């Protein structure tokens, strides 16, 4: 059963790969990478059970935590052509709500 789930997730990854290669917009590619990442996280979780190594869940956790950093960088790259500007004003201490 777990194996079937893993295969289904891999099929989903393959579909994402098709979308990634096909585009047509760059945003479609970003979306595909993003979704591919989510599926990889799920696959790693499932796979941890399949091979009986809970360590794989740590890797999934890492991706779940950090995959969106790349997306934010891509957003900045697209919109501002630079990585070093601020997206948001710093709220100094004392601005607490």
């Amino acid at each position, binding site marked *: *059963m*777990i194996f*079937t*789930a*893993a295969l*289904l*997730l891999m*099929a*989903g*990854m393959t*579909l*994402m790969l*098709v*979308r990634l290669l*096909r585009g*047509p*917009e760059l*945003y*479609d590619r*970003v*979306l*595909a990478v*993003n*979704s591919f990442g*989510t*599926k990889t*996280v*799920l696959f790693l*979780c*499932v796979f*941890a*059970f399949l091979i009986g190594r*809970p360590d794989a*869940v*740590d890797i*999934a*956790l890492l991706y*779940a*935590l950090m*995959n*969106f950093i790349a*997306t*934010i960088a*891509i*957003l900045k790259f*697209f*919109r501002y052509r630079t990585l070093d500007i601020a997206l948001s004003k710093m709220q100094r201490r004392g601005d607490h709500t």
Partner: protein
Amino acid sequence: MSEFLQALDIIRPYVAGAVLILGAVIVFLGASGVLRLPDFYSRLHAAGVTDTLGTLLVLLGLILFSGFTLLSAKLALVGMFLLLTSPTATHAVANAAHKSGLKPLLGTWRSQPPKDEPGNNT
């Protein structure tokens, strides 16, 4: 009472497997939606299916498998972080597309009735 709990324990793997498979199927459906839908903005919604219900069910199934363990707690953390970060990432992509002037498809859109090859409509 304990018999009931025992019965629960016996059916638990089956329930877990069913939930897991359902989740994986939903992930797959979401992925096929990303291929099938006509434009970038509508594909976001299909990806959202994977990100939300698919994620929840797959992780729930795995949690049911492992029972009340530390691994379950970690899986729950994976779910929490995914539910926190994936809509953020989706928002970021949508925002970038919108700001750069990518026009969404509006009005009414129908897939061509005679043919539904997934993904031939881009």
